[in-house]
């Protein structure tokens, strides 16, 4: 990794975090998703195809990253930018794709914890800007109301995101320069088992949002057995699900009239 690459990846790490300057729709919910993040890292490091090899399993593991009420325990943006960067930087030291994915998950683990901690620091420090906002409001100066939110929030946000990312990425770069690290086979096996089990976390959390009555379990299982017994791809089941939802809606509408 060159210095420019470290800075660019750290910059995107910040842009993909909650509350960056581009907004959560473009940032956290788009640049911060592993599918997109791995593509961006691939572009920066000049190796998109390898980046996507690790990006797809990362995206599957973190498919349902819901942050109710701003409770961020795990910073997805940090996890995936650092994870993908680590896999690409140390690519030469590992043999196959499985080991590469293992590396990405190990990097994502470190990144996620650092990012989660920094989010909490950011969240705590932001409280102090409230005084500034109160002062501006008190003066009735509408033209200045953006300053506490953007200048205040972004100074803290940028420092909390960009600086730690540069430090972590520099450490990875140093490891890459020192001819990498050797990863034992059992570690790769274990970490890829963890990665594919992690998808259950996302599914469990989505279910907590969706299931409201017992019959919902039957609907969930219907989707499950369509994939297992009938061997259908997720896309195929999604198409059926759309049709079922439309019919279900039509039945609900009809009930109203009757």
């Amino acid at each position, binding site marked *: 990794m060159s210095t420019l690459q470290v800075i660019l990846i750290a910059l995107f790490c910040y842009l993909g975090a*909650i509350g960056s*300057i581009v907004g*959560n*729709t*473009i*940032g*956290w*919910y*788009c640049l911060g*998703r592993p*599918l*997109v993040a*791995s593509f961006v890292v*691939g572009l920066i490091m000049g190796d998109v195809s390898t980046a996507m090899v690790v990006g*797809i399993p990362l995206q599957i593991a973190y*498919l349902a990253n819901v942050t109710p*009420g701003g409770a961020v*325990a*795990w910073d997805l943006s940090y996890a995936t930018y650092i994870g993908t960067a680590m896999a690409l930087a140390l690519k030469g030291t590992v043999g196959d794709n499985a080991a590469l994915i293992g590396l990405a998950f190990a990097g994502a683990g470190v990144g996620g914890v650092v990012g989660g901690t920094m989010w909490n620091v950011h969240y*705590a420090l932001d409280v102090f*800007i*409230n005084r500034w*906002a*109160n002062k501006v*409001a*008190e003066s*009735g*100066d*509408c033209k200045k109301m*953006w300053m506490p*939110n*953007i200048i205040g929030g972004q100074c803290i*946000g940028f420092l909390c995101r960009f600086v730690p990312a540069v430090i972590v990425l520099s450490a990875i770069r140093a490891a890459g320069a020192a001819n990498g690290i050797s990863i034992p086979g059992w570690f790769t096996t274990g970490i890829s*088992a963890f990665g594919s*089990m992690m*998808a*259950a*976390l996302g*599914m469990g*959390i*989505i*279910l907590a949002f*969706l299931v*409201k009555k017992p019959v919902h379990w039957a*609907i*969930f*299982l219907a*989707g*499950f*057995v369509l*994939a*297992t*017994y009938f061997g259908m791809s*997720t*896309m195929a089941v*999604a198409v059926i699900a759309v049709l*079922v939802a439309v019919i*279900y*809606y039509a039945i*609900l509408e009809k009930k109203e009239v009757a």
Partner: protein
Amino acid sequence: MATKTVSEKTLKNSFKQWFFWNGCSQQAETMLGMAFGQSMAPVIDELYDTKEEKAEGLKRHITLFNTESQVGSVCNGIAIGMEEQLANGVGTAEAIQDAKVALIGPTSAIGDSLWVATIIPLLLTICLSIAQGLTTAPWVGALLYMLVYPLGTYLLSWRLFKLGYKAGLEGVQRFMMSGQLDKIMNAITVLGLIVVGALTANFVTCSLNIDIKTATQVFDEASKSYVDGTISVFNLDNLLNSVFPKIVPLGLTLFVYNLYAKKNWSPLAIMGIILLLAAVLTAIGFIPGIGAFV
């Protein structure tokens, strides 16, 4: 005195400030309060004349406010509509505060469960399938998501913002009460549940790694002769899968659901448990005699 109205230009300006900068200064004291104030500032500026009125207006919008901000733009629209009425002498400042507080719960719930927990995973799944399908150019899936999601959300968010402004608090509440929203939510819940079922089946993997083998002579295709080898006599994963395919991943998912929804575990703690389980199951796989990896 002429009636005061908020111009289209100010509406757009207010929406943009919210859409891009709603999360800039999130904190525990007022949550999205400062961002809400920023989005209301151009409106207050246009509606009121004196410094004192403007100060009062700004102060009531930097107080505690929270929502899922993409769907929650409807709250901004409602608040602007109410400010406009207040500037014309209808309603009270307290009513605006009450309306904002009342909207926090329902808009967060709808935004989190509908948009964040259903639409985003659904769209990601579609883009993932495309990425997996196009082995030579998997990045197309990523690019598609980068275009569709922000654009679609921007349009939805702007429409909700306008809806809030035009229909007002009563209109939006009437819509929420009419049962129409419930029906849409119910239909989308069905959609989400079926897709999550398929996702669980196709993407969650978990093996118990117990495979008891016995040493015997096996036929080697390459040398066309019998050589020393092992055959499996008891493979727990295969046995369970023949009873109900992928029952172990399903069990793991339900276990996570139980910890999260019923026992109120944090996602980070659940992640720790999964890491521990992965370590134990991998270790089992390496135990001589019963493990699947030896």
